[in-house]
């Protein structure tokens, strides 16, 4: 028990100094920018806030936030995703004042953002950038193959056994691109600075202008919109530890061509879930048992309040589902899953703002790959 501090404390009569344990507890609860600023308070505070165990604990305790983009290349903002969900001007805070020209946010992972800078001609990726918006560090990631191949970054994950941050790419095998050619997956480790090809080429993959969007769940990445998944009308699953692919049946919503968009989610109870979007309503399906592809159950049918007829994505919080669509500018609707009703609607953003549907947790953790190659975008 802490009986030793009393003797060492300097004699101060007005008010006493808090011990380092308590200062640590307080600093753990502050937003990242405050922690950075308060490194200027004293050497002791800087020592506390630069310790790796402090940085790891602080990152774990950050609230989950939703990212809002101010158009292409504009600022990125963050909205807290607690249950008092209330997307308005007061709660939005600036995450990053600007991104490089025409940069698309592809995926957040472990407090980092993966951004794609696209060229004009074939909507191909020109550059990939990884950035920590809190520490304002940037690095660019070389593409797996040079030349005029088509490449898409389709996953960003933390590889558990090595602790490395890795990117998963899909790249066309021949330079003509277009339809009917084969494509291969590549993995790039940010820490090791190496790219390697993964497994055999996927046969006859339709090449893609869409960016595959992955859901992290139980150490796996999942896609419904992926050149391979769409072809097979299945959910594509990537084990981030073994780095192998498998497939999983989607919920029985009818054909993929049945004017239904699917969007992968994770419920508050940690179950894999799919939002099936139809005109005027959204069905929420839950996979009751992750190891049983036949265990899909429809839990909710959400009737969209007019004028919203179609949503672009859904995010779940503890009690609510947040749905967003375009009508005619971005609008979000909150659905209470316990009460089974729409509780708040029409959270309107400025017309240049766009709710990305990406969720994010800040992290002040240091990564050597930023120091090896610091780059100003």
């Amino acid at each position, binding site marked *: 028990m802490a009986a030793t501090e009393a003797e060492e404390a300097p004699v101060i009569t007005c008010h006493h100094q*808090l011990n380092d344990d308590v200062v640590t507890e307080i600093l753990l*609860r502050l*937003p990242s920018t405050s922690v950075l*600023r308060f490194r200027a308070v004293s050497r002791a505070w800087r020592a506390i806030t630069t310790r790796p165990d402090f940085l790891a604990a602080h990152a774990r305790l950050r*609230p989950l936030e939703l990212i809002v983009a101010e158009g292409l290349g504009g600022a990125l903002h963050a909205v807290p*995703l607690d249950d008092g969900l209330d997307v308005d001007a007061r709660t939005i805070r600036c995450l990053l004042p600007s991104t490089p020209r025409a940069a698309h946010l592809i995926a957040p992972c472990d407090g980092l953002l993966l951004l794609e800078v696209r060229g004009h001609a074939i909507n191909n990726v020109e550059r990939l950038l990884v950035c920590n918006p809190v520490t304002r560090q940037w690095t660019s990631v070389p593409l797996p193959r040079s030349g005029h191949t088509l490449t898409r970054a389709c996953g960003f994950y933390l590889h558990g056994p090595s602790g490395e941050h890795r990117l998963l790419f899909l790249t066309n095998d021949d330079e003509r691109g277009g339809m009917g050619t084969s494509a291969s997956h590549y993995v790039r480790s940010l820490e090791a600075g190496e790219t390697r090809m993964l497994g055999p080429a996927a046969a006859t993959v339709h090449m893609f202008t869409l960016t595959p969007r992955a859901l992290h769940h139980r150490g796996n990445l999942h896609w419904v919109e992926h050149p391979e998944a769409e072809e097979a009308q299945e959910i594509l699953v990537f084990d981030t530890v073994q780095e192998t692919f498998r497939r999983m049946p989607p919920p029985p919503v009818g054909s993929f061509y049945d004017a239904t968009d699917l969007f992968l989610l994770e419920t*508050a109870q940690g179950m894999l879930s799919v939002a099936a979007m139809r005109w005027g309503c959204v069905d929420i399906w839950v996979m009751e048992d992750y190891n049983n592809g036949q265990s899909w159950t429809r839990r909710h049918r959400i009737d969209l309040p007019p004028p919203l007829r179609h949503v672009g994505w859904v995010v*779940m919080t*503890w009690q609510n589902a947040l749905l967003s669509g375009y009508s005619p500018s971005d609008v979000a609707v909150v659905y209470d899953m316990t009460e089974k009703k729409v509780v708040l609607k029409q959270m309107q953003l400025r017309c240049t703002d766009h709710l990305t549907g990406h969720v994010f947790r800040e992290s002040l953790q240091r990564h050597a790959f930023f120091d090896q190659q610091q780059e100003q975008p």
Partner: protein
Amino acid sequence: MEVDKGKGEAEETRKVAEADRDTVTLKSSDGKLFEVSKEAAARLSTVLAGMIAGGSIDDNGTDLKQIGSEALENVVDYCNKHANSIPSAALISSSISFNTAPFKEPEEWERKFVDRLSHDALFDLVEAANFLGMERLLDVTCHKISEMMKGKSPDQIREVFNIKNDYTKEELEEIRQELAWAFYDD
């Protein structure tokens, strides 16, 4: 647990009597005694729970030499108030850390509880909460202190926390340049 048969009968009786009591007596560094519900103390403080389970609670007042009477009064007051408040949905769900803020917002009565405290009393209470392993009270007091820190400059923080600046002018300027953006928004 196996009952220690070697112990005297008087000891046994005392232990039974103590186990039957539904309050525990705590003694502050300046010798004042406070009664607190045993159930609340065990539920809200990991240190007190350990002492109760380990039988190291003294009937005549368990010594808490690190905690002054004002802070201990607040601790006991908090435990008693907490024992009376119906556990809210917010507290129940706080054990599941998914998609929600890891620190639950203080409830209205908890906010009022810390708002009425003087600066010194708040600092004493946060140390007592930390010492006694009272996670929830630590959350509530730290939340209040972090609100006080919002938007403040390092100079202002030094004043609030009574900290001497031990950086040189050059070092401070270097930090300021390196982390420029952190100095104008929060």
